[in-house]
């Protein structure tokens, strides 16, 4: 069984407007949980009417601070997204890759993540 896990943004957020960073965090948490198990994910944006860069930065851009580019590319598939939103997502992803290129920033975040998991 190597079927991708289906995640529906509408269901996770409970709204057609993906505006709030907090809602983006809920989507990130679900994707991250699956990626940690190296599962494949199909993320559906069906019935979503509006998206902001803040939402996508939190939901998807943030992944680049915790996972390798290749793992995201191989495991995450986007579906049911309008073309202009795909363009926005591409910019978010390109910006995130650039953002986490800074080795100090990447190192610091990894260290914080390790400390968090030590505590919990």
């Amino acid at each position, binding site marked *: 069984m190597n079927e991708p896990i289906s995640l529906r943004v509408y269901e996770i957020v409970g*709204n057609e*407007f993906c*505006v*709030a*960073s*907090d*809602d983006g965090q809920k989507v990130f948490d679900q994707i991250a949980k699956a990626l940690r198990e190296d599962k494949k994910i199909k993320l559906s944006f069906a019935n979503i*009417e*509006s*998206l*902001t*860069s*803040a*939402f996508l*930065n*939190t939901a998807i*851009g*943030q992944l*680049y*601070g*915790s996972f390798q*580019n290749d793992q*995201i*590319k191989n495991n*995450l*598939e*986007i*579906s049911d997204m309008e*073309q*202009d939103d*795909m*363009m*926005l*997502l*591409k*910019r*978010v*992803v390109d*910006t*995130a890759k*650039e*953002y*986490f290129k800074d080795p100090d*920033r990447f190192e610091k*975040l990894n260290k*914080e993540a390790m400390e968090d998991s030590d505590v919990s």
Partner: protein
Amino acid sequence: MKFRLGSIESNYDGFSQLADIAEATKELFWDDIEIDMMHTSWFDANMCAPLGAILYKASRDLNTVKISDKMPSRIKDILSKNRFLSNYGIPAIYDTYGTTVEYKRFEPKDERYFADYIEKKLVRKDIMPEMSEALLKKFRESIFEIFNNAVIHSKTEMGIFSCGQYYPNQNRFDFCIADLGVGIRQNVIKYLKKEISADEAILWALKIGNTTKTGKVPGGIGLKLLREFISKNKGRIQIVSDKGYWELAKDGTELIKTLQFPFPGTAVNIEFNTSDTHSYFLASEIRNEDIF
């Protein structure tokens, strides 16, 4: 203390007059503040957001804020329809033509509530019947981007203020979001660890690749997206923060100026061109493998 307002338009002079009030009231406590609009011949209704922010701060400092109801009837009408004057005891009146987007104050955690407000008030097809779905989506998302920016960067505890107005005869829709937060200059100074003027800080924040974000969530494209869209739409943007004033005009020219006194937060004012006939559909298709 009494302030006599002249005409307030969405421009350098309009924001300067509001910053003057902010400066004069910033250290007042237990005082009486009266706004006199008797000689105001024009008031861009979207400017209720920055004026409301300044007056809200004055009220929070336990001053008694009053707006005299003696003002030209067309101004009183519009500021009653958008419920700005309701905050100062003047009754609201019904907006028959539905051209106002109500003046409101939001808490930073109200992002969903804000989205509902925009959906209900802005996206009324009977107000803007000739706009394409794609353009309307761009309008809505631009406004959300500004609100997100205020939530993320202002660190405000006094809320986020918004107000909009549609001018059907001029094919323009103006919307303003103002906050009483730390401002762009302070954020950039903290990030760059060096002194920078307020106008330079706005220019820095608008440059592709620049962001003051440092945490685990990347950022820094909201303002750039807004600028790109408004350029294409042939609209206008003004960003006012601290003493910095930046404007993108309809013809694409930029104006950067310094206010005499600081605006106590950040205000972003956008003018959408509602007669825009751009398709906003992408010429080439983007596939999943192009994204990651």
